[in-house]
Each structure stands twice: as C-alpha cells, then as structure tokens.
C-alpha cells in the first residue's frame, strides 16, 4: 500500500524505537494510549498489539515517519477506531493524513465495515477541521473530557461512512481533485491525526 508521500508497511521490530520516540514526544504523549504517562520501552512493546486489529508504520524511502493503527474492532457491529501519529519532523507534511487514508481504504476492503471512528481532542481538531462534512462527520462531543496542558478539553468523536471513504479514495489517486468544483462539492480527500 503506497501513496504519494508514504508507504504502509507492517510494523516490525526495527520500527519500535521510532514508534516509541513518537508516543513519548511531548505533543503526542498526552493523547496516546498512556495519556501523558511515559511507559518504559518494555511496557510500550507489551501493549503494542493490545486491542489492535491492524497497524502499519509509515515509511518514506525506508525511513519511519509515522504510524497508523486500527483498534477497538467491533466487527459484529461493523466499526473500528483508527488513529495516527507523525514523527515530529513530518508534522504538517500530509504524511499522517495520507497514511490514515491508506489505512481506511485497506480496512474497508478487508472487513465489512459500516463506519470508522476517530477520536480527537478539540486542541488537535483544527489540524484537519476542513474535512468536516466532506471527509467525516462529527458525531459526538464529550465536554471537558481530557486534561492536559493545564486545562480541560473536549473530546470529539468523528465518524466516516462509505461516502467519505469514496472521497478518500479519490484523493488517494483513484479519481483526484481535477474537475471538482466548489459548486459540486464532490470528489476528494482524507482525515488526519487522531489519537489512540
């Protein structure tokens, strides 16, 4: 699975140092599984596959620049959660967005899903808010749910349905943006970083 910027490769042991660096980065640690805690490398490795349906490292020319995860699968209900994080040097480059799009495309092909959820904080939401209504719907808001950086933040639950996945596939190269006009409001893109 490869896009313009990144390829998805199954997580290998040699990826673990890069992944550990990502989840212990100050910008990521408050949102990831340990919620601000800093696990030892051993603890991190032990939990790496807990409640995970699929996960991939994002690689650019053999370098690990991010990580995407599908977790908390409820296949009987037709949904799963997804999350992504970037290496600090790849923030804002679109690598995580593309990786997340590739993951969602893969999940939709692999399982009979009805929707995909992403959870994010209101602090991170502006990074990809332009996708609201096109790439995802905001289905839930837990007010003052998370505490970090000295204050409480809302947690947002985003959902992607089949029509959103079709737009993601368009952006990934199965249709593209040309020919789309503002008035058509159709054909397009991908979501971005949410946190496991």
């Amino acid at each position, binding site marked *: *699975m*490869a*896009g*313009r*910027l990144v390829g998805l490769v199954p997580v290998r042991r040699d990826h673990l140092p890069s992944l550990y660096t990502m989840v212990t980065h100050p910008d990521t640690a408050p949102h990831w599984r340990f919620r601000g805690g800093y696990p030892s490398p051993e603890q991190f490795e032990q939990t790496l596959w807990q409640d995970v349906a699929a996960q991939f490292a994002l690689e*650019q020319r053999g370098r690990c620049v991010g990580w995407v995860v599908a977790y908390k699968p409820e296949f009987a209900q037709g949904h799963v959660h997804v999350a992504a994080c970037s290496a600090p040097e*790849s923030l*804002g*480059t*679109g*690598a*995580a*967005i*593309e990786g997340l799009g*590739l993951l969602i*495309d*893969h999940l939709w*092909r692999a399982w009979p899903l009805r929707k995909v959820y992403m959870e994010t904080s209101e602090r991170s939401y*502006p*990074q*990809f*808010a*332009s*996708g609201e209504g*096109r*790439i995802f719907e905001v289905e839930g808001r837990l007010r003052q749910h998370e505490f970090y950086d000295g204050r409480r933040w809302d947690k947002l639950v985003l959902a992607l349905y089949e029509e959103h996945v079709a737009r993601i596939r368009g*952006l*990934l*190269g*199965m*249709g*593209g*943006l*040309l*020919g*789309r*006009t*503002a008035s058509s*409001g159709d054909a*397009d*893109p*991908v*979501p*971005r*970083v949410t946190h496991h």
Partner: protein
Amino acid sequence: MKRQEKPNGRLDANGGSTEALDARAWMRRVADALGRDDIEFTLAARLAEDLDFDSLAIYELIVLMDELGADVPEALIPSLVTLGDVYDHYVTRTGGGVHRG
C-alpha cells in the same frame, strides 16, 4: 492498493494537455479544488496564517499540484509558506515561462 497511474505532463479536467496556468487562473483552480471560493487568494497569502489551510488542505494542495504536473517532493513541503511559493514551484516544474501576473 494500486495508485492510479499519473499521465505525463499537465492535464486539464478532462485529462488532456494544457499550457501552464497564469497565476490568476492557477489560484482559481486551487480555490475550486479545495472548495475555498469564499475568500480571495493572493500569491502573498500565507497558507496557514492567512488562508487557514490545515494539514488536510495542505495535502489536498499537494495532490492538486501532482495532478497539474508539478509534484511536490515531501522535503519541499515545509518550505512552502505562501501561495506564491507553491505557484513558483508549479511554474518551475511545468517548464516556466509564465509570469506571476
């Protein structure tokens, strides 16, 4: 998943060849593609600060440039601060000869 093969050169909406767009036409194409016809684009506008481009919009811009025949290497992305920076890259990649206007 296999990516759709990208034909060489610049393409119009129907996949046919076209000349490099001048700055005004290029900005109109960007605004249309990103669904941002609500504001007036200028080449001096900063993508994040002035145009409120988030990471998703930046990625959409990269995809559009790719489709216009001006693929953006990932190493270049952080240096694209203004719309003019992106347009300059587009002109360079598509053979130049077009003034910012």
